[in-house]
């Protein structure tokens, strides 16, 4: 023993080595868990799209407008691929949380507590967002077709406004689910929606009914009150 080295340094070194060994083992175990979770997630990502393809999910997605909603968001892959990726991430997260819980460490316990609380809210938010995107697509398309058939020149604009409003509502609901400043989100949405309604009301009220009518007729109105071809007995 070196007579110049303080006795407590040996104790510190020993404790440090012991702690380092424990942390190393924990880290190794954690890495093992991550690798295991990643492997499971990769399997999910590979298998789920194939299963969904067999079940003709992509055709269903096209039918209900999901594919169109994805394309509109520049997401060009098949919907089954996105479902596979989403489930893979959820799997990774859940397996990691479950593995961490098995280590029974204070800091992993904190991750587990927060993570497990977050998963249901996150899944709900994603479901709300997807449902909102589908609904927005359906509503916007229906309004677009009806407006075109009615001869409204601003059909695309009206349809786009309807899409944005439904998406805003869905986004507000999804953000509220995951607890992102719920008060701010609700207030923002209320202000936006109220603003739109107020603007329309002002256009018709304060702006003058005649002016609003003339403007709307010129901009949005049909060139005639009669439907094209209404002179015919079509059937």
């Amino acid at each position, binding site marked *: 023993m070196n007579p110049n080295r303080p006795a407590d340094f040996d104790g510190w070194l020993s404790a440090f080595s012991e702690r380092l060994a424990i942390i190393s083992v924990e880290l190794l175990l954690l890495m093992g868990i991550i690798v295991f979770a990643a492997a499971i997630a990769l399997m999910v990502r590979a298998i789920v799209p194939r299963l969904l393809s067999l079940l003709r999910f992509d*055709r269903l997605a*096209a*039918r*209900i*407008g999901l594919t*169109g909603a994805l394309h509109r968001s520049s997401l060009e892959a098949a919907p089954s691929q996105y479902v596979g990726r989403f489930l893979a991430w959820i799997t990774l997260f859940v397996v990691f949380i479950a593995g961490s819980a098995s280590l029974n460490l204070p800091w992993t316990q904190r991750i587990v507590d927060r993570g497990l609380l977050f998963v249901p809210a996150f899944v709900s938010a994603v479901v709300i967002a997807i449902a909102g995107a589908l609904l927005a697509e*359906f509503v916007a*398309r*229906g309004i*677009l*077709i*009806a407006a*075109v*058939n009615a*001869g409204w*020149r601003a*059909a*695309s604009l009206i349809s786009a406004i309807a899409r944005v409003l439904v998406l805003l509502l869905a986004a507000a609901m999804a953000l509220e689910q995951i607890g992102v400043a719920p008060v701010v989100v609700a207030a923002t949405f209320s202000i936006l929606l109220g603003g739109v309604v107020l603007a329309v009301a002002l256009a018709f009220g304060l702006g003058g009914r005649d002016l609003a009518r003339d403007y709307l007729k010129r901009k949005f109105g049909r*060139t*005639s009150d009669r*439907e*094209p*071809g*209404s*002179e*015919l*007995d*079509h*059937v």
Partner: protein
Amino acid sequence: MADLSALLGSTAPVDVIVGIPSFNNGATIAHVAKTAVRGIADYFPDRRGLILNSDGGSPDQTPRAAVDAALRARDDLEASARDRIAVSSVRYRGPSGKGSAFREIFEAAGKLGASAVVVLDADLRSVAPEWIGRLAGPIVSGEVDFVAPLYRRHKFDGTITNAIVYPLTDAVFGGGIRQPIGGDFGVSGRLAGLYASKDVWDTDVARFGIDLWMTTTALAEGFRVAQTHLGAKVHDPKDPGQHLAAMLVQVVGTAFALLETYADVWTMRVLADRAPTFGQAEPVTLDPVLVDVARMEEQFRFGVQTLDRIYGLCLPSKVWADLRASAAGDAGISDTLWAQIIIHFAIAFHRRSLARDQLVSSLTPLYLGRTATFIRRNADRSDDEAEADVQALARVFADVVRELHRLWKEES
């Protein structure tokens, strides 16, 4: 108003039934009911007949008007004729619509053992006793099971029939029934029994689309079909509140849905025999029809420009490119392009590429474009030349339908 069971006790047996579906037709049904009585008396003097009004609960006393008028007409007949014609009215059950009314009539035909059933719209103003003879005669004589009407119409009327329903039905099922959604039909008791037994009376068939369903069912199920000249059809003006898109959804949606119902028949490429045509086309005077073609074309171009995502989804790239080119030019929509559009919309309907009502509704601007093309092409032509143009379109459909067979096969 009697219910069916009471009617069965008092009326059976019956040979010929004239059924009149109604809802709020109090102003017009009396003429139809009287004509039906005279038709049976004049054309089936040795048969027992029944005038049966099938009403949807009209608040305007339609059943009373029908029964009273028919009874008065019967009272004017000789005693021997009076005894063999019964008159009744029933309130139909099920969803409101012409189909539910027909169901009641078909069931009555089965239970009363009728050999022929004629159904007439309650708002007809041009119906004549000979209509009963022409619609029921070939059935009573055992020649056929189904008689479709053949009206004289203005060359620009019946455009959904001319541009879509007739050529599509003829190309897919055969038969050559020129007016498959005519509204007034003759049906054998055997076919009426089949109609009544079908599990469709809680579907859209009960509400709308019954005419095309009846025609297609007769063709696809191998019944002997025919058509008969009836002259001009004059009836109440159409409901001005009913939009073209809604009409397309009902009529074309039914036509596309029937492709699915009878896919196992038409995909075997077995076409029904050409239906014989009874009677002669009599010259009639038709009111002129003035159409704003320019607005229809404007609507067509606006639709192609604005609904590009939808058309791009439903149509293959070549057809979509041709459609864009036709919207950009002055030539309109050619026969071949139109047939291809309809075939691919039928496939998109089958695939459920979009919500079905939205899909068919989006066809409206294209239909207006095609109608404008037809009107421009036939503006200075005679009725016969315009009819030849419709027949030319039907031949194009018969060619293009091969594509439908191929695509349908890929889907299954």
